[in-house]
């Protein structure tokens, strides 16, 4: 929207916001007290939720957008950006979150999808969106719908990093493959065929091939529970980290939060990661993937 020579809601300010979050940790919080702990620990933003994914998983039922009162309470408590989740395809939840002036909306598979066929048209909003992806094609489809930031899905609420690793590798391998094609002076036809295979727009595929990276920031999420997990994901190519249940389901959230922030900044320095990992108490207990049936997996939501 343009007013007084000021343009709001442009893709540049939407994706630029995510660029300023890079190298940082975004933490799930359910109340003002947790939000303050996250901010003091050095979190770059908080995700306001009613229940963390581990509880959603344990309690079942339909998981929806947070109560606006909760979001307002958290916005009051901190100066860092406040994000919130809307259900996949639930554009009215997104409208409500925009009206509340949250800083980013996560169209999230952690909540129960509202539409089995359509994701939200994210171009229709001034507020930016982050979306989950399990591979490059899915990432590019979300970007085509207007997502200004991508995160790996992982398997939220498990405390198990294995799925996040797989998704991050899926995305970065896809990028490398396209970049290699571009280096060989690939003809247009080949990129068109890649685009068909990825089920993604040609222009975005071309951009990735030429630049060797997504046109938006790539974070990781889903199962990160320790400083070493965070650093692992950064070394695999993530530009920042979402931590859901991993912090406030652990024994000492404050110390763990600080340690994960430090490990994310110094992800290439094992000595710093070792130091940060000491004396954190118990991590969240976590789940083996074999204990979770395909139907119970959140990452299969969205397409």
């Amino acid at each position, binding site marked *: 929207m343009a007013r007084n020579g*000021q343009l709001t809601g442009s893709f540049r*300010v939407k994706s*630029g916001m995510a660029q*300023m979050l*890079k190298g940082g940790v975004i933490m799930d919080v359910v109340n003002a007290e947790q939000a303050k702990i996250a901010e003091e*620990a*050095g979190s770059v933003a908080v995700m306001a939720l009613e229940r963390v994914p581990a509880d959603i998983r344990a309690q079942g039922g339909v998981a929806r957008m947070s109560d606006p009162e909760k979001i307002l309470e958290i916005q009051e408590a901190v100066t860092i950006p406040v994000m919130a989740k809307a259900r996949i395809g639930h554009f009215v939840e997104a409208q409500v979150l925009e009206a509340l002036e949250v800083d980013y909306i996560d169209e999230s598979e952690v909540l129960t999808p509202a539409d089995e066929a359509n994701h939200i048209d994210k171009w229709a909003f001034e507020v930016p969106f982050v979306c989950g992806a399990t591979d490059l094609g899915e990432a590019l489809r979300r970007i085509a719908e207007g997502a200004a930031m991508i995160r790996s899905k992982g398997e939220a609420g498990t405390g198990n990093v294995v799925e996040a690793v797989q998704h991050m590798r899926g995305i970065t391998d896809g990028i490398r493959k396209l970049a290699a094609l571009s280096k060989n002076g690939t003809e247009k036809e080949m990129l068109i065929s890649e685009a068909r295979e990825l089920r993604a727009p040609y222009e975005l595929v071309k951009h990735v091939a030429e630049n060797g990276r997504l046109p938006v920031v790539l974070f990781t999420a889903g199962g990160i529970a320790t400083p070493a997990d965070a650093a692992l994901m950064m070394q695999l190519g993530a530009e920042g980290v979402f931590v859901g249940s991993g912090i406030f389901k652990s024994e000492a959230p404050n110390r763990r939060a600080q340690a994960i922030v430090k490990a994310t*900044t110094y992800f290439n320095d094992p000595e710093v990661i070792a130091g940060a990992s000491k004396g954190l108490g118990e991590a969240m207990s976590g789940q083996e993937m074999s204990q979770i049936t395909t139907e119970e997996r959140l990452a299969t939501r969205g397409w």
Partner: protein
Amino acid sequence: MVGNGRKVTTRCSNSETTDSPKKIGVLALQGGFREHIDILNKLGVEPVEVRSVEGLEGLSGLVVPGGESTTIGNLMVESGLLDGIRSFFYRGGAVWGTCAGMVLAGSAVMGRKQPLLGLMNALVERNGFGRQVRSFEKELEIGGFDKPFLGVFIRAPFFEDVGPGVEVLSKVDGRIVAARGENILVTAFHPELTDDVRFHEYFLQEVCGL
């Protein structure tokens, strides 16, 4: 350097030859540091990621990028860079703060206590233009620039008030969004998110004196 071996330099007290590119540090604790590095690479200087006090050695200037000022501030305290950058600056080192870097350069933040470098006599209003939905782009008139510059403001701060020795370079709706002192430059907006390199050139030439 191209050629066989080091060029012999005389009357040069420091170890750098006149041919080697000047090093410009970019604080790389968190935020949009890669974007600054990409632009500096095009301008014939050697950008260096700074994550520790040792990283400040031999720099001709330092960019403190956008990001979350509380996060960067915490990490600066922990790494000793808060004092390290202060002494770099007070020994005459040139510093440019963009967005969060501008917040950190200030001497106080309205209504809040957080670690700051305090390099400029200025009172900062964080998120002065509002939350993300109010983030905007606008063509700005900049003191000393002959053509407007596209300002990209993302949850941007402004200077509420500045003390002596601070020259205001640009305002939006009466709010200070770009300013400089002897060896410091601040912008509330993000030149590194545009293709326009004039602010980076301005920093290198007018502030770093290269």
